[in-house]
């Protein structure tokens, strides 16, 4: 008698729920007034613009001849990707607790909706800025679009996995929230956004290459600048790291969902 819902039906319900959560999130966060949902990518765009201006003024490319605008846009966009995803999943459950009474809404759906929205925002911001600067002649077109695309997709995957781990951990203990903010702060300068691995001393290279997102940023920049840069990344390492993080994230989210105590 325990006939289960078929897999196809489950997928259909899950897509419906995620779609509903996405729309709810967009209207709640951005409203219908002034720019409305355009803020989704205008906000990260402004961040990137400020950083680009700052880095241009500070000549952060350390005497290399890399075009600084492209360096800043590729670097800071990738930071926004993983940092915003994770930040949005921190303490994502408490404000949405009541939604769990609608049985088809699960904790994983809350996370997926927020992650998708952040990935969309960061991606649109990146594309709009790159297009804008290219049209001004401040950025060149990417040397290898496949490299850019795969670097970005890997970074998005990494962001989603990281966000689910961090988000689920904050469901266990608020300590995770307090720890995440300083950790993300430290990770920013180490994440590959502000340097090319090649510029670092070799013993330090080994250390930063433990961080999966460094591989993603190197891949992205390798695609953008082509032979103008020497990149250091290992697709196999990045793939396995993302895969393991995804498994860990899903297991944690599932367990957090079982433990959740609705008021």
């Amino acid at each position, binding site marked *: *008698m*325990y006939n289960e819902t078929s897999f196809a039906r489950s997928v259909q*319900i899950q897509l*419906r*729920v995620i*779609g*509903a959560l996405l*729309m*709810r999130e967009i*209207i*709640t966060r951005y*409203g219908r007034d002034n720019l409305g949902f355009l803020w989704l990518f205008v906000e990260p765009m402004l961040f990137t613009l400020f950083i680009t201006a700052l880095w241009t003024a500070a000549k952060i490319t350390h005497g290399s001849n890399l075009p600084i605008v492209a360096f800043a846009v590729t670097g800071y966009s990738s930071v926004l990707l993983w940092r915003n995803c994770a930040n949005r999943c921190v303490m994502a459950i408490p404000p949405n*607790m*009541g*939604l*769990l*009474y*609608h*049985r*088809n*809404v699960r904790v994983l759906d809350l996370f997926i909706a927020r992650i998708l929205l952040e990935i969309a925002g960061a991606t649109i911001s990146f594309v709009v800025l790159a297009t804008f600067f290219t049209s001004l002649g401040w950025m060149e077109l990417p040397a290898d679009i496949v490299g850019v695309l795969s670097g970005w997709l890997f970074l998005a995957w990494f962001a989603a996995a990281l966000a689910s781990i961090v988000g689920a951990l904050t469901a266990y203990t608020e300590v995770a929230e307090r720890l995440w903010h300083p950790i993300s702060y430290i990770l920013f300068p180490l994440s590959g956004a502000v340097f090319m691995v090649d510029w670092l001393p070799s013993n330090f290279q080994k250390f930063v290459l433990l961080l999966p997102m460094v591989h993603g940023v190197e891949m992205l920049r390798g695609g953008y600048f082509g032979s103008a840069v020497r990149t250091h990344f290992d697709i196999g390492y990045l793939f396995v790291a993302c895969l393991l993080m995804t498994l860990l994230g899903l297991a944690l989210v599932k367990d957090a*969902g*079982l433990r*959740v*105590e*609705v*008021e």
Partner: protein
Amino acid sequence: MIQLDNITKTYHTRHGPHTVLDGVNLQVCKGVKVGIIGRNGSGKSTLIRLISGAERPTSGRVWRGISVSWPLAFSGAFQAYLTGLDNLRFICRIYGVSFTNVVPFVQEFSELGSYLREPVRHYSGGMRARLAFALSMAIEFDCFLIDEIIVVGDSRFHEKCRRELFEKRKDRALILVSHDINTIKAHCESASVLHDGKLHSFARVDDAYTFYQASLH
């Protein structure tokens, strides 16, 4: 049919694990109205959360062969910054129901008028309750969960709710949880008593009440 098999629910408190439900079994067939009576803190709301699926049992399983509502007139899922209509739109999307089909009903039933286009945080308690009840009636279910009957609005609105739920939907199953025997007598055919984490089921409400009275002492 809804079936609860050997449900146990343990919460972690500062004083260690606390078992609220301990091996609870329950069957609710289509169209049957079941009352669950218990004292404050006996685990009635926990049981409702498990049947609705908001929480998962520590062990055992809940099987739902018919569609089960969220707790009647529950307003905790409202997003206060969204309008009443946007909240309705969200519910419709979740349950795969056409928004345009149910708007007239919600407008008429909730009597909120133009307030439906205002954020819910501007609503009074009574207005929220009216919207919550209207949303509960906008989506059709085979079984409604009721965690204490709360009197919504004035007596006229109260009567409207009664008619909508107990007359127009009298063919539906009902699980009504209350600490008040009269409420359960008025609406249920059989009843169970929740006492010390165990659920004792009786075919007649009167027998359940006798047991409940004895358990109080």
